[in-house]
């Protein structure tokens, strides 16, 4: 009897499972990668749209008031009113983590209004505070709406940000509005899709493996029968019956084997008669 490890059934089942695993892994890898890319692109489009709408809403008198704020004005009525305005816009969009305005001096950026200023749990920036992690997209935001290419990490966390220019009443650009979306939200969406694909692949592998196991079992069963008959004949037991009925290659093998066994019986009968 062939050992379980060496049996054709084990080899067939394992080969198919390995094949399915390779195909599934490649499918998972490419699908998940494309899904991640797609989700990021959707988020980027959403950020551009949000920053443009909010910039439109704040452009004009609000933008002028923000640009006029100076360091130390944090307790002024104007600052409190503008911070409240930004806070109410932020709170009306659950996807927004931070909302703030900035102005530019050369290549350096300074905060104008950060509604989280004074928040002890998650402190925001004060008026005129320098932002050190300036990137190309932020500077582009002073000309047209733009968005980060990748998640960026600073002291406020890992974020994807969109920017749009803020204009005063005369249409001059006085700053940018920054809209931050937390990576947690996007990663949670990516993980959900990843897990769904993963579960589907696991179920498919289990179904395919069960099917292959049953299928290979029927093949092996008939091969074992043929093996047992050959074994009987080789030990001189000619009283065997060929009960393998298949229409495939194993059936053909059984038929050939049956002919061979019949001939052997005839020759043995012939020899016995001659001996007598």
């Amino acid at each position, binding site marked *: 009897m062939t050992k379980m490890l060496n049996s054709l059934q084990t080899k067939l089942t394992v080969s198919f499972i390995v094949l399915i695993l390779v195909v599934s892994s490649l499918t998972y890898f490419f699908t998940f990668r494309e899904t991640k890319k797609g989700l990021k692109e959707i988020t980027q489009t959403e950020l551009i749209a949000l920053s443009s709408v909010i910039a439109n809403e704040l452009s004009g008198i609000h933008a002028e008031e923000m640009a006029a704020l100076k360091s130390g004005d944090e307790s002024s009525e104007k600052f409190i009113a503008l911070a409240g305005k930004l806070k109410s816009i932020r709170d009306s969009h659950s996807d927004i983590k931070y909302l703030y305005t900035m102005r530019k001096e050369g290549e350096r950026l300074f905060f104008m209004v950060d509604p989280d200023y004074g928040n002890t749990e998650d402190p925001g920036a004060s008026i005129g505070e320098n932002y050190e992690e300036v990137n190309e997209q932020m500077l582009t935001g002073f000309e047209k709406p733009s968005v980060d290419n990748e998640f960026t990490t600073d002291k406020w966390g890992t974020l994807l940000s969109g920017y749009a220019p803020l204009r005063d009443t005369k249409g001059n650009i006085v700053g940018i509005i920054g809209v931050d979306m937390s990576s947690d939200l996007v990663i949670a969406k990516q993980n959900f899709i990843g897990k769904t694909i993963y579960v589907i692949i696991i179920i498919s592998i289990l179904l395919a493996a069960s099917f292959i196991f049953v299928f290979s079992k029927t093949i092996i069963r008939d091969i074992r029968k043929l093996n047992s008959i050959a074994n009987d004949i080789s030990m001189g037991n000619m009283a065997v019956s060929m009960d393998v009925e298949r229409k495939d290659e194993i059936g053909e093998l059984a038929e050939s084997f049956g002919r061979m066994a019949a001939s052997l019986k005839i020759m043995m009968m*012939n020899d016995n008669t001659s001996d007598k």
Partner: protein
Amino acid sequence: MSELSDKVLISTKRYLGPASQTFLERQAKNHMRGLNFNDIKEEHLPELFKWIHLSSKLIIDEKADTLLKSLEVIFHIKKMD
């Protein structure tokens, strides 16, 4: 070997393999009054097939029925009891 003997041999080989000739020669010789298998005629066929059926049953069990059926079809012989 006559054309008829050859045709019977080819049809039988499918079931009994390379020893078919020995088998057929024995059936003709032992059951048909020493008839040489190579000399069989059309009129010998029903009796020869009867003995082929009976003897092959001991070798290939129920497949002997299929062998008989196939011989009857090939040689246009009415079903024997």
